[in-house]
């Protein structure tokens, strides 16, 4: 096993871990936003427009951390600067 194989192996494993941990954090955060949004909707159904809008904005902001992890994982897999031949 030469250095390049080891590097590729580590990159693939790290990409998996990046995505797993990144998705975990975003999932926890989004679930809290969803629960809080449902709670607010149940209390104030008249304000559903504003609540839903702010909820979606918050969801997309939280999800962007998972998207950053996805970009890093894809860089590791497909555009890794340290692996030769790419």
């Amino acid at each position, binding site marked *: 096993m030469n250095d390049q194989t080891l590097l590729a192996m580590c990159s693939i494993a790290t990409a998996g871990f990046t995505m797993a941990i990144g998705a975990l954090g975003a999932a926890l955060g989004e679930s809290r936003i969803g629960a809080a949004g449902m709670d607010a909707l149940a209390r104030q159904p008249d304000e559903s427009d504003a609540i839903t809008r702010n909820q*979606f*904005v918050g969801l*997309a*902001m939280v999800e*962007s951390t998972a*998207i*950053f992890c*996805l*970009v890093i994982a*894809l*860089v590791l897999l*497909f*555009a890794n600067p340290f692996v030769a031949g*790419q």
Partner: protein
Amino acid sequence: MNPDLFSDQVLAEWGAIPLTSTMISSAAVSVLLVVSMAWVARAVREQPDGRLAAGGRMTFRFLADLVRQSAGRPSPTLEVFGGSLFLFIFASVLLGQLPGVRTPTSNLAAAAALAFLIFIAVPVAGIRARGPLGYLRRYLRPNPLLLPLHLISELSRTVALALRLFGNMMSGQLVVALIVALAGFLVPVPLMALDLLIGFLQAYIFTILGCVYIGAAIQVGEEQ
């Protein structure tokens, strides 16, 4: 397998300038938007009761409300700017659903260019509204020690805007491409519908965040 996520396919050469697929598709989005909006504007003028005119007015009202609420004050220039951003991002998602066309914003350079527009628009709007000194005072508030943090936050939020748009658009295209390769024709249709929803949401977020940043620069010093 190399799905060509971070590079851009060169389709033609125009003199010394390579014409990439992103350049052509984003130019196509701009031209289509200008033509269709001119059509809607003509309908509003000549047939104000028609469906097209009603749709155009509803779209405009939606965008103007969105910008006004997130910037915190009415500003016709900002409405045009934010509305154009929204329409461009959403129209590029729509164009990206066509077979063989990549969403222009699923290229990092295109997404970064949109975020850079916001990065430039913040000081321009702030200086126009408050004057150079009034705008620069924002960086020394509440304490001059926070100047480096203000500068870092300007840069990092621009990078975050670009990466968020790029990551969402690119991951949608990648998932559709993977499902087509694994499962076959017509299977990824629900995912493409989800892609449209995400594209709408990202256009919304991008516009809101841009207008919040610009609105914060305009309102410097009003909080006291």
